[in-house]
């Protein structure tokens, strides 16, 4: 029991506590909306990290899973009134299925071949979404996009007029994925994925069914990403194939994870939070001059990569360790 009052436990707890309290101090729906988006992006980056970081498979097509989750849950919601809460599970499962479908043919692909194959798949999927206006009698909107019906305040259908519930929902999702990553990092599967990332042939020789491990990783990653898609659908309430399944979405997810530090538990979270806030700030502060804000954003990414090639996690890890040490020291002193 004593262990639980070490900084290693109470610092994260403190962080979570602060995150929980934020809505009490911020009333601006816009800021809450942005903060929900920030947490949401951190969540997506973490979900990607399962396959892109731990297993080292650079997927550049994760938008597909966001879209799958979003479309499946929204279609079920609009057509048979299925609550997106259930849609989350079904959307996630469908995304996971897609993850396996993409994962299977790409099993033998390594490195850049895999990365670019996922680009091809995602593009193909996006074009299909654009070209499909109906699935059976269900209207999907094609390129016109799909408007998620607005019910007003309907918590049972994941719709709220206030931003606070969205914020908490994003926070919960993020905590779940971080908890999962933390577990994964220490589990057999995590060890296996890391081994595959480092050297797939050697992993095979150690009895690892690399194909299965990769498919499990792909399915898990796609599942969580798909769940994120369901959230996105209810937050934005409009699904547009280019925006949701396009390269911008897919690349953004990867950006965040890598800038933060891929293959680590908290790297993608940090990347998601940092970059999203920076992107938002530059856009708001510099959108008078056409292009300026994205120019600055690009430059900032470039500088991050040059100066912190292993990810922003480096920036946070050391001071955090120091802080833990310091607090630890003080506790010991205090105890004596």
């Amino acid at each position, binding site marked *: 029991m004593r262990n639980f009052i070490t900084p290693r436990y109470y610092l994260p707890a403190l962080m979570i506590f602060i995150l929980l309290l934020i809505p009490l101090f911020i009333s601006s729906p816009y800021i809450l909306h942005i903060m929900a988006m920030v947490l949401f992006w951190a969540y997506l980056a973490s979900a990607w990290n399962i396959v892109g970081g731990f297993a080292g498979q*650079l997927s550049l097509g994760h938008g597909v899973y966001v879209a799958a989750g979003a479309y499946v849950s929204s279609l079920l919601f609009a057509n048979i009134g299925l609550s997106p809460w259930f849609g989350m599970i079904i959307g996630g499962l469908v995304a996971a299925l897609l993850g396996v479908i993409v994962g299977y*043919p*790409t099993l*033998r*692909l*390594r*490195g*850049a*071949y895999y*990365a*670019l*194959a996922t*680009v*091809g*798949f995602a*593009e*193909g999927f996006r*074009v*299909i979404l*654009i*070209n499909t206006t109906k699935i059976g009698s269900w209207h999907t909107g094609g390129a016109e996009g799909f408007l998620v019906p607005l019910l007003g305040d309907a918590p049972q259908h994941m719709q709220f007029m206030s931003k606070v519930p969205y914020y908490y929902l994003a926070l919960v999702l993020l905590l779940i994925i971080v908890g999962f990553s933390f577990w994964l990092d220490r589990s057999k599967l995590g060890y296996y994925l890391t081994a595959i990332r480092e050297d797939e042939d050697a992993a095979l020789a150690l009895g690892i069914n690399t194909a299965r491990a990769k498919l499990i990783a792909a399915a898990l990653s796609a599942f969580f990403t798909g769940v994120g898609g369901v959230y996105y659908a209810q937050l934005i309430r409009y699904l547009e194939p280019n925006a949701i399944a396009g*390269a911008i979405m897919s*690349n953004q997810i*990867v*950006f965040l994870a*890598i*800038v933060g530090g*891929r293959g680590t538990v908290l790297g993608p979270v940090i990347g998601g939070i940092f970059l999203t806030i920076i992107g938002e700030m530059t856009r708001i502060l510099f959108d008078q*001059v*056409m*292009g*300026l*804000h*994205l*120019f600055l*954003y*690009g*430059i*900032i*990414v*470039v500088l*991050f*990569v*040059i100066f912190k*090639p*292993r990810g922003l996690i480096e920036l946070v890890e050391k001071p955090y360790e120091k802080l833990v040490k310091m607090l630890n020291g003080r506790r010991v002193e205090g105890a004596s």
Partner: protein
Amino acid sequence: MGVLSSIINGILMGGVYGLLAMGLTLIFGIMKIINFAHGAFLMVAMILSYWLWKIMGLDPYLSIIIIAPLMFLLGYLTQRFTIKPVLDAEKDVREPIGALLLTAGLAVAIENFILMVFGADYLMAKTAYSGASINISSLSISVPRLYAFVTSLVVAFLFYQFLIKTELGRAMRATGQDRGVALLMGINVSKVYSIAFGIGTALAGLAGIVLIPFYYAHPSVGAVFITKAFIIVVLGGLGSVHGALVGGLIIGLIESVAAQYMTATWTAILIYFAFLAFLLLKPSGLFGSRYEW
């Protein structure tokens, strides 16, 4: 007749795609970096070429003598001052993901810089031959595309000779196979990287120049071509120069001929999924070495 026309058009366009893919495959083969800024460089060259034509009346093909060296320099400096530090930090990594991300960041910065400075207009050099076509009975062959195709072939040939025959070309290939040992051969690896990136960028520039008489430049024009170039490079086999050209021709042909039998949007789907199916059979592309990866 229609099919013949579309075959010809597919081949002509395919050559240009191949030219663009060649630079991408070169950079990958030697530095193991997927260069996401390739499309942005294409765009920069198109815009430069346009302005040279617009202000000085310089024919785009003549502007090669100015733009190719300029693009080379741009690539050279980009590698020297941005990619090199990242690569140095990722020395023992097989695939420098950081460098990949860096090029993606650069792409965003370059595109938006051009947007800031030159605005978002759609620019095209309407040269005398821009709309011209050679008509043989009902067959018409677009002159600017023919020029572009011929240029692509010539450049591909010269470039291939350069890689195979010259000292520097050999050094570049050697560096691509093992950069650690290349050092021990007296090769200045970081300079070779800069040159490779410079040449890759210049190739993107050439693709831009041959496009500008019949295609519109704007800050995000790179996006129109880059995904195609990615697919082509993988199809041909990463790092394979002739693979890039053949891949370009294949994609050009499918795009053009298949569109006669289905809508143009479905050809896109066909291309992407045929590509995946192909990779299933041949995971390292047409001419890629499975030993490389």
